[in-house]
């Protein structure tokens, strides 16, 4: 680590460098000892003793919510219809690995996977028995569907007054459009969040062909993952409140509204200025420089938007004239000016590799005689990113030997660096119905004969 640091600090004033390195080294060693991935499995889990039923269907907001709770130690039982959750088929190019889609393999982590046919009376009876013994239910039935089956919140609340019940839907459970509720999909969530309307190639850039001036989705399932995170957060709020009050509650999650909560100032700005910011591609309506340019070997992100940081950036690229010409945000936030400034940064960048640019910025930032901080990021292809040692060092990417699915490259838990109760991955996923025997025997005492009967009747 020390050598690494020395290497990174080469641009620093020589005198300061050494003491700074010692100080930082001490901090890094200490902080790593608190959150070392090696110790994770020896530490307790925050949500031990909490049982969650995930009956969501074809919905990665539900699956991600229960993944978060499972990473933090809750016992999550994923309930699927006997033919399996259709989410198992949401997989790139239709690729299955041992019968299961790739996205589901990631969000099956630490969960018990059982089957239960909720369209049958017997299935619903069993579901109610499970609900009685659980703390949390997560579902994505859509408007009114659960009530029709007799397993909606009003009905389950009678069975378990402490139940925390999460319903995930695009339009929510009330409001004039709630009845529109059909399946909740990521693309629809993104479309309704306003994030899509402001993402995409720059509307004001004459170089961009008209057909590309369209609203654009984030390439991952950002709507679903945001909805899932907020659902998990709401569950924890409700669990915390239940400790004081003893009562459960109903949680209405619309992933599109969750993503709207992450949509910068879109609503505030519209209310106050009656304006909408344009889609800005590599520009930004509120901060500049905050841009993407093409280096010799790929794209890089470069930022220096406050006055001192812009000064730093223009110094680094040897263009003090640009600072003179665009000294404050008043000039830098005009779209036409952003095009001019980006072109200049682009001209500077195209003769350098992204590593060279990164190094120049690092040297600049650690040199105390220089003004401002220049922030640079390399735009990695996922495949390149998957090879970066730093991710493995911190256990956010790992090669994982799953008992059923074999060796997989997976993302770890984002909660892995909690000092007392780190999040963790224990297993990746299980095939359809793999935990029927364990769950039904342990929780409901079903013996082999009973299980056979239920199977024959198509209940499990």
């Amino acid at each position: 680590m020390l050598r690494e640091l020395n290497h990174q600090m080469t641009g620093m004033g020589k005198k300061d460098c050494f003491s700074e390195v010692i100080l930082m080294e001490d901090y890094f060693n200490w902080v790593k000892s608190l959150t070392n991935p090696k110790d994770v499995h020896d530490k307790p889990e925050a949500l031990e003793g909490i049982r969650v039923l995930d009956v969501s269907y074809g919905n990665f907001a539900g699956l991600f919510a229960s993944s978060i709770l499972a990473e933090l130690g809750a016992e999550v039982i994923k309930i699927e219809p006997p033919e399996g959750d259709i989410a198992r088929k949401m997989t790139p190019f239709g690729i299955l690995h041992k019968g299961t889609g790739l996205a589901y393999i990631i969000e099956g982590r630490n969960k018990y996977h059982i089957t239960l046919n909720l369209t049958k009376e017997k299935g619903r009876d069993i579901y109610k028995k499970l609900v009685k013994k659980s703390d949390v239910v997560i579902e994505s039935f859509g408007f009114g569907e659960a009530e029709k089956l007799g397993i909606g919140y009003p009905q389950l609340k009678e069975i378990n007054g402490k139940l925390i019940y999460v319903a995930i839907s695009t339009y929510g459970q009330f409001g004039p459009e709630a009845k529109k509720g059909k399946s909740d999909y990521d693309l629809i969530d993104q479309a309704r969040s306003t994030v899509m309307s402001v993402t995409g190639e720059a509307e004001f850039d004459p170089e961009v062909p008209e057909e590309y001036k369209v609203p654009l989705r984030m390439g991952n399932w950002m709507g679903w993952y945001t909805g899932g995170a907020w659902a998990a957060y709401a569950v924890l709020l409700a669990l915390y409140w239940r400790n004081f009050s003893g009562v459960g509650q109903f949680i209405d999650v619309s992933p599109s509204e969750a993503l709207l909560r992450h949509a910068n100032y879109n609503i505030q700005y519209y209310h106050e200025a009656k304006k909408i910011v344009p889609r800005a591609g590599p520009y930004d309506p509120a901060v500049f420089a905050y841009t993407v340019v093409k280096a010799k070997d790929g794209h890089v992100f470069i930022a220096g938007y406050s006055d001192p940081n812009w000064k730093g950036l223009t110094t680094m690229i040897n263009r003090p004239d640009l600072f003179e010409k665009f000294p404050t945000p008043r000039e830098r936030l005009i779209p036409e000016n952003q095009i001019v400034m980006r072109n200049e940064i682009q001209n500077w960048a195209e003769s350098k590799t992204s590593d060279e640019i990164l190094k120049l910025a690092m040297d600049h930032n650690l040199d105390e005689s220089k003004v401002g901080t220049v922030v640079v990021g390399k735009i990695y292809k996922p495949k390149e990113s998957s090879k970066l040692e730093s991710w493995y060092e911190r256990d956010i990417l790992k090669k994982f030997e799953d008992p059923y699915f074999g060796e997989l490259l997976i993302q770890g838990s984002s909660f892995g660096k909690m000092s007392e109760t780190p999040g963790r991955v224990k297993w990746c996923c299980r095939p359809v119905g793999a935990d029927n025997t364990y769950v039904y025997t342990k929780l409901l005492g079903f013996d082999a004969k009973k299980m056979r009967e239920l199977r024959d009747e198509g209940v499990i």
Partner: protein
Amino acid sequence: MRDIYKEIFNPEIIFEKPEALENVRVLELSNVVLGPAASDFLAEFGAEVIKVELPFIGDVMRSVTPGFFLYNNLSPGFEEQNHNKYHVAIDLRKPKGRELIYRLAKKCDVVIENFRPGTTDKWGIGYRQLSKIKPEIIYLALSGFGQWGKNALRVSYDAVAQAESGLMYLTGFPERDPIKCGVWILDFSTSITGAIAVLAALLYRSKTGKGQFIDIAQVETAIRWMDWTWVYVGLTGKNRGRCGNRDFAIVPSNVYRCKDGFVALVAFKEDEFLGLCNAMGREDLKIYLDPLERLKPENADLIDKVIADWVSKLTINELERLADEYGFVTSKVLTPEDVYMSEHFRERKTVWIFEDHLYGELAEVQGVKLSETPGRIKWVARPVGFDNDFVFVKLLGLSKEEIAELEKEGVIGKWGDAKGTQPPDDWDGKKGLFF
């Protein structure tokens, strides 16, 4: 039976209900978006957040706003992640400022910071020091790359994490450049990750009395949220590319151009796909009923082309009516104006309009709905140091003289010359003050 939801979410009685975090106090030592947004999410559900800024200067976001627009001296870019907080200004780098932080920390349950790793430690107000004063403190350190490791010294923004994780590469059309998100997306997604971790730590503390240190990194949120990317790269050895508005794992799913605007359309489940085929009058496409068949690239291309062609002859209204009738899923791509004007979002209080004591009528966003402990907006971002007197008197019992002395020494302070740090120009010296 559906009326029950109207009743339990009745907006008229939100303020009669308790708040989940009403006994939790948070000390926010942070700046920009990542950090302030995390404590904002806690404040939305009742935590008492004391936000500490640098005297006279304040949070950077006070001047980050589209086109340099301020509303009664309030920056929308600052407003978005600062609700219900108490705003004090302390110079953390001065010894007496540090003393104030110690005294505040003693009375807080949670500390949230987003300085470069090691900075608060160097200033003597990191977890190492604060946990000695208050062992049960929960300390959330947010950063770009984490508190230790090869990248720990690097400075990061949302877009750096989008870039280095590979997320930015996934966004955009394959034949064009990768596109960064139009909002500072990972600032918010990392903040909600941090808020979740804080809640987990609070739950653990209720059981054991123990606090803890939490290290949450922006780039790790991105990596975690990239769904099937890594397992795909690992199993196939191939890169994951980008596909515009289509989805490699859900077909059909795309944003199409109607005669009068853009519409997102999805029909993955079999009944939805059948409905779509019927609506289009394309019996021949029913051979692709199996979702896995549809995901094969050549079939996906064919289906997408047929839909694009069909949709281009329809208006948004016509398409949405057909979707309702035939049971596939569509939505217009909503602009901020669409959402702001929508009855639906107003009635749900997702668009939350109220009259702020200091700034007048404002519109905020409230996301998830909890029946017993609903989130709520009480006020928004205050000028720098606006609540100094309230916090220092109420919480620390400082006298008027002591406060004046600290102010004279520059340990604490209020707003400065920049408009975004100040109260509205017509402020009467009283409006909005709690003390």
